[in-house]
């Protein structure tokens, strides 16, 4: 894993980034996959001055790579303090990956709100809901996770976005002396669970799939510019059809150029054991742990089952949403 000691990384207060999404949308897993995602890249590494955050990263990286269990909500922290350390920016030459004093640093303070706060049958604990509100208000960046599987099955993404967003907007835009018409936040909208065949098939039907020529595994990708199209496509097959309201809402509250869409998967696609490549008809990288209550009948809802990871983890777009936020927040206008 790419990790550095606190001294090297330097400890300075990071930009606050809040994570947000329906329960089970994959927030905790995404954070847990961060270590592996970085380990698979040549350029960025992660460091932390916060012992609990570092400990979590190490534990989760090991768990995801060996035990292949999804992280439990109870194992997660409330907030994480990490620094992403990038390659040197200038000059662009063969030694550009060397990290020196000029390396780009992105300090993150991430808050993972445990699932079940919004739209749950059990009303959320008031102090926890308040905590998220405060957190959103204090943060400059937001990672919002849209879980298409949950949207197929339950269709409550709008509900999960709408409530907190309205409250956030009234607090910031409706406050005394406020003049702005949009929230100041940058937001990464992550479509999670790209590895699910339903999501992949929708992308394929929309003609959004490409592969990177240098990818030895041949994993399919949806380019960031097309991620919004996929989201629209996924919304049209959602269980309630209210997902398009969600898209409307987003453009109503955030500046157009402060929104970016990502198609992500924390666990990635299954790799064919023999060929070491992506296998079109065998993409699922997880397996249910206990028998379904109705064997051979209607498949039980994915969102109601427990799974384990089947093979190697190849995170897709787990670091990128954070990098984009970090760059934009540190004033890097070149971040696409």
């Amino acid at each position, binding site marked *: 894993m790419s990790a550095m000691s606190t001294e090297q990384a330097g400890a300075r207060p990071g930009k606050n980034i809040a994570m947000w999404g329906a329960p089970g949308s994959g927030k905790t897993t995404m954070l847990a996959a961060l270590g592996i995602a970085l380990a698979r890249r040549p350029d960025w590494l992660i460091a932390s001055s916060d012992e609990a955050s570092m400990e979590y990263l190490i534990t989760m990286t090991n768990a995801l790579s060996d035990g*292949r269990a999804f992280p439990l909500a109870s194992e997660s922290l409330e907030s994480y303090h990490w620094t992403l350390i990038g390659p040197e920016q200038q000059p662009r030459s063969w030694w550009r990956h060397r990290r020196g004093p000029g390396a780009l640093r992105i300090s993150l303070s991430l808050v993972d709100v445990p699932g079940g706060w919004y739209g749950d049958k059990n009303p959320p604990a008031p102090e926890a809901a308040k905590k998220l509100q405060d957190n959103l208000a204090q943060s400059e960046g937001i990672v919002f996770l849209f879980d298409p599987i949950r949207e197929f099955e339950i269709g409550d993404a709008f509900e999960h976005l709408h409530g907190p967003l309205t409250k956030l907007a009234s607090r910031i835009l409706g406050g005394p002396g406020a003049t702005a018409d949009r929230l100041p936040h940058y937001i990464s909208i992550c479509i999670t669970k790209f590895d699910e*065949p*339903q999501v992949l098939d929708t992308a394929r039907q929309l003609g959004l799939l490409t592969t990177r020529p240098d990818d030895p595994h041949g994993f399919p990708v949806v380019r960031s510019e097309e991620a919004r199209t996929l989201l629209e496509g996924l919304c049209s097959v959602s269980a309630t059809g209210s997902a398009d309201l969600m898209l409307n809402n987003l453009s109503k509250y955030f500046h157009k150029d402060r929104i970016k869409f990502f198609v992500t998967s924390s666990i990635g696609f299954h790799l064919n*054991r023999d060929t070491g490549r992506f296998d*079109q*008809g*065998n*993409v*699922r990288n997880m*397996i*249910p*742990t*206990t*028998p*379904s209550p109705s*064997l*051979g*009948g209607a*498949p039980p809802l*994915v969102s109601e089952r427990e799974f*384990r990871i*089947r*093979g190697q983890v190849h995170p897709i777009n787990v670091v990128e949403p954070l990098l984009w936020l970090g760059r934009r927040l540190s004033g890097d206008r070149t971040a696409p």
Partner: protein
Amino acid sequence: MPETDSGPLRVALAQAIAALSGTDRLVVVAAGADGVVRCHVRRDESGTPCGYRRRPVAWADLLVGTEGDLPGTTDAERELLGVAGLPAAGPVILVFAPDGDDSRADRVRGWLRAARPDAPVFRSGTPIGSLITEAIANDPLCQPYDLVVLRPAPDTGRLRLGGLRLFGSGAKRGSSAQVSVRCGPDGGMGTVFAVVTWDGGVPRLVVQYAARLGPGKHTLTARLERPGLVRFVDPEGFVPAEAGWGELVAMVPPELPGRVDSAHLICAVEVYGTAAEVAERLSRISQIVTVAGGSGDLQASLIAYGPHSYDWRTPDRPVEVLAWAASPAEVAAGVDRLARRGVPKPGYPYHPDAAQLEDMLATVTGLLREAGPGPRAARTVLLTVGARPPHPPEDDPSRLLPCPRHHDWAGLVRYLTQKFGLAFAAICDAPPEPASGAWALLGRDLLAQTSEVDVRGLGPALGLTSAPPTPVPFPLLDEP
């Protein structure tokens, strides 16, 4: 004076018994210190020599003993010759054992030799009964011994009574013979194994046993204990049978029942789930095979399949063929073997919701293809007993992980139907209502629930057996 060694007497007895034919009888009179005894040996209608011994008469009960050394008394002589019962003609052997009273011995010998001067005389102290028994036991067969079998005509199935040679004439005790026969349905009474000799086409019974070996082919080992006694030493379970010959012959059906003797029942069982679920599936199979096998000649196969492993650290469990085109008894034995094994617990690293049914179908396809174009069973039924659906060949909306080998169950069912005319029966722990998906296809001809299946009705319903079966009393011998 003849020798006291009984060797020459043994030889003489063996020769005299061997020379007996038809209604001839060999008379042996033996006198010794205890008195006089008369024995005779003759062959019964199956040619088996049989020995008979009269009650020995003590000297004290005879005049010759009480009258001391009175001169030659015709009464005493007549009395002794009456006890000896020497025939005027036919083979006779006289045996004298040492007697304490020399004068009595001389007199008795004199009378007997005078009655049959041609009879050989031996001196032997060995009890004559045991010498005769031994000589009979050592007598080689003078007629062949056959096992009664029914030969079905290959075209019509008409049954013809006949013999299958066990021991040829000249066979000696201790010889053994192996024969292969097929048992038909026995109606619960067992099959009768009758050993006979033939007398102008008429069978003469030597011994008769009954055994419940179960329908199907069996190899028997018979041993000739002595003339007149054949024992079946392998397999076990032969008991002396009392059924009358005429009664048995009357029971022979004119032809084999239903002509369903070329059915093949392939049982595939899912050995995955809880131990109780697997035990119940196995017990259904053994019931069905026993019932169906008991009412016709049935080929049966047993295939076990389980879950796929989705963790490369746990090897996949291959489909296991426990019996192929074998007897129902072999399948029952396979079921027993499976019942003694542990069952993998549903869950990681195995897929909890599906089983490698598709690999089982591929295995069946391979085995049927291997069997080649030769004569095939007129009807082949695949009976699948399980709970879980198959894995799809590729990711699909069922959300079950695809088969690692990408076998396509629906395609295989289609192929098996078109290529081999397979019929499909299924017993599912909880069949979908209404029938749908893989279990609907696997149970296309019959779909039942494990806890409710009618095991007796299944054979006839699938055309494996005709009901009710007619018992066949004797073993069957198919033309090679």
